[in-house]
């Protein structure tokens, strides 16, 4: 029997069936590694080396989580550093990008067009080109092993994309809106803070999330610009910890991995709606 001989209703049912099968396959793909991460973190050391591996731990233990604070010297410190650097980077990026994006969206001035092109092109510069000289520069300025070094670097990397997004968001809002406020005697900046920013708030949240994620994830510069364990963020902390003495302590490593993933997962869950709304409004248009 050909498909066309089926009643529309049956065809629709078959379609739904395949839709859910496809969803199931993709969800398994999306979630299996995360399941494996959690499962391994609950295993005793020896079980993690078993062949064939066990899918659900035979013995479930929270030992790897309990020893986390004192056992992995510096783990709490890495987490703290990542939070400080991530939050500072996000705040500075948002402030700088909001003003720059607003200026590029609302003002006409000589060089504006070239500036937008330059900022877009910056996005393409390979970070590694910057690394060698930035390392030398920060060493001369005695900025190695400081929060400032990491914050400055991560902010600069996030800025081009953030400015471009912010300009896009501002472009979607008609200027009449602010004009109305300005006629009432509000200054330019008041119009930006009180009228424009509340309107594009979801977009601002989206930029903030992208920026925080970048800072939270960055390894290359974090590894190069810090050498003291006190200053390391999570990525270099992980690499240097688990390549050294904790190598092959899989459950411990996975427990630490779960813990460092939770903050970003919570953050994205809270702001998911704003993120999608922001992206729908601005970046995606066109």
């Amino acid at each position, binding site marked *: 029997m050909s498909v066309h001989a089926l009643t529309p209703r049956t065809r629709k049912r078959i379609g739904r069936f395949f*839709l*859910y099968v496809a969803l199931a396959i*993709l*969800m398994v793909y*999306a979630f299996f*590694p995360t399941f*494996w*991460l959690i499962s391994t973190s609950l295993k005793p050391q020896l079980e993690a*080396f078993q*062949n064939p591996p066990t899918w659900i731990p035979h013995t479930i233990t929270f030992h790897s989580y309990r020893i986390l604070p004192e056992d992995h010297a510096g783990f709490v410190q890495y987490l703290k550093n990542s939070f400080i650097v991530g939050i500072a980077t996000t705040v500075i990026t948002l402030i*700088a990008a909001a*003003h*720059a994006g607003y*200026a590029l*969206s*609302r003002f*006409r*001035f*000589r060089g504006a067009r070239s*500036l937008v*092109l330059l900022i877009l092109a910056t*996005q*393409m*510069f*390979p*970070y*590694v*080109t*910057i*690394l*060698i*000289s930035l*390392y030398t*520069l920060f060493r001369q300025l005695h900025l190695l092993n400081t929060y400032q070094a990491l914050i*400055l670097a991560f*902010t600069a990397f996030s*800025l081009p994309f953030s*400015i471009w997004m912010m300009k*896009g968001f501002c472009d*979607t809002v*008609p200027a*009449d809106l602010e004009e109305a406020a300005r006629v009432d005697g509000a200054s330019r900046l008041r119009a930006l803070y009180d009228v424009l920013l509340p309107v594009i708030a979801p977009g601002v949240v989206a930029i903030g999330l992208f920026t925080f994620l970048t800072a939270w994830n*960055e*390894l*290359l510069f974090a590894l190069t610009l810090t050498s003291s364990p006190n200053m390391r963020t*999570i990525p270099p902390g*992980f690499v240097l910890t688990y390549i050294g003495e904790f190598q092959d302590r899989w459950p411990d*490593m*996975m427990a630490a*991995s779960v813990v*460092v*993933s939770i903050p*970003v*997962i919570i953050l*994205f869950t809270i702001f998911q709606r704003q993120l*999608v709304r922001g992206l*729908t409004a601005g970046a*995606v*248009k*066109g």
Partner: protein
Amino acid sequence: MAEQTTSYQDEPATRSRFGMPAPGQALEGPLLAWILLAPALLLLIVVIFYPVAHTIWLSFHSLNLSEPLNNHWIGWRNYKNILTNPVFGFWNAVRFSILFSVAVTVISFVIGFAFALILNERIRFQTLWRGLALIPWVIPYVVVAYLFFYMFNSQYGIVNDVLTSINLFGWRPVPHPLGWYGGTGTLARVAVITAAIWNRFPFFTLMLLAGLQTLPQDLFDAAKVDGAGAFARFKLVTLPGLRGIIAVVTTLSLIWSLNEFAIIWAMTNGGPGVATDNMVIHIYRAAFIEQGISRAATMSTVWLLMLLVFTYFYVRIMEGKAGVE
């Protein structure tokens, strides 16, 4: 270039042409624009433009940290060396960088798009699935790297366990466990690319899902009335509607993949041999492990020029996109 038609072009007559405010008036015009831009520009100059210029300058010198005093101008010699002598591994790194970026972008785009199309349908627990699908993207790179490193372990990894247990009527495609991180390195390449794809696809899902929701529903209805099947609707309505966003997200993904360091470094260190040595790892190693600062600077400069060619197209896409609005 989309200039704002609503920009304030006419300055009030009381202002000078430089936009200096008359006494008692708020700051306006180009001067205010530059003041608003100043913090961002200052940061970009100090952290990006100056270092790039300095790197180019270094590439014409002979700086090696093992003998820092022997630093003098040597012209194009570094360039000649890295471009013509395979010992320096430049072209190998170029090849793997491109292979890695294209593979990661294309495959994760297909997976991410499939996800977006499914999650855009009316299904049960939609919000839950959307939330879960995002998780691989927000898990830190180093965690993704170590997780896949463990899953691809040759002796007790789950990937080998699943592969060796495949048995289709006596046909076993993988009878023996694979040594993922040894041999010629082909398998190591597959492993790092697989890890990067899993981390990347949710980005495509997120952006394309947002794009799908901006498509006008009446276009789909009209196509349906005209008798267009699901595939025709996808080809004639969905794809053209998403063209701009597809161009943007695939370009972003290519850029990120060309800059990838964390996943590869944490999984393989660029090995075995130089099999997973991409440009970033290659330059990092040249500068900070082998201490050949000038050689690394030269490779960085050439790589920068190669990416600038790519940037040219990138900017044109972005401009074209802005022009549509």
